[in-house]
């Protein structure tokens, strides 16, 4: 599903200056634990998180996650957005809760990642 469609479903607003709405996302992973993201997330996966510190950008970048959604209308600090722009990772924000964000995306056909080794 394209990032633009995800934004429409989540009624999300862009946080980075330049957003590529055509980024294609097949799956999503929701977490407030970055080590879980690092352990399990696959490239091409959308990150859904309630945290906003700069290490969220680093984590997404290490795993090759192409976009990040912040839930509950939490706006990240400036350094987070600046690094996201520098690394070219689109950041969007929705006022929906983590649960609703996951729920609507799942309903729209976004897949969970597979944890084959657990």
């Amino acid at each position, binding site marked *: 599903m394209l990032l633009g469609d995800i934004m429409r479903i989540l009624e999300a607003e862009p946080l980075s200056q330049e957003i590529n709405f055509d980024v294609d996302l097949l799956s999503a992973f929701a977490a407030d634990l970055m080590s879980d993201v690092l*352990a399990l997330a696959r490239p091409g996966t959308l990150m859904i998180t309630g945290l906003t510190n700069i*290490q969220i950008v680093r984590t997404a970048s290490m*795993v090759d996650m192409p976009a990040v959604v912040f839930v509950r209308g939490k706006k990240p600090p400036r*350094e987070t957005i600046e690094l996201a722009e520098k*690394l070219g990772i689109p950041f969007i924000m929705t006022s929906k809760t983590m649960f609703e964000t996951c729920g609507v995306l799942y309903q729209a056909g976004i897949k969970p990642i597979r944890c084959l080794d657990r």
Partner: protein
Amino acid sequence: MKSLSRQEPFVIQREVKPLDFLSAGETASDFKETLKSLGIIPEICRKASIVTYEAEMNAVIHGGGGVIAMELSGDRITIVAKDEGPGIENVSLAMQEGYSTAPDFIREMGFGAGMGLPNIKKYSDELEIETEPGKGMTLRAVIYLRD
């Protein structure tokens, strides 16, 4: 792969500062960009950057800062993280998923799940940890360029 024909081993290293969360991760990003520019395939770049990032965060959070180095030679990438912090009393305990001594303010940032060392093990082909309590630790992780 371009890198396999290289004769001289390629080495870079960076210093990381204790509890500097704004800069933490720069080393891993830097190594990843370097590997990409050397033509290493994305899956290997990803493994190396996750290993570096977890080791870097550990040096920043637990190790009182340190030095992280990456060597690319022949068929492997070797990542060495060295610090002179408190070291680890019981390495096999620290290697267990969920074991963490991270304080609350670290947990609030999304770290301290006790998953870092297990992640390093998961994404590397060889792993050695040398540590002496009170003197620091050296972590050496190897990632093969081919399976």
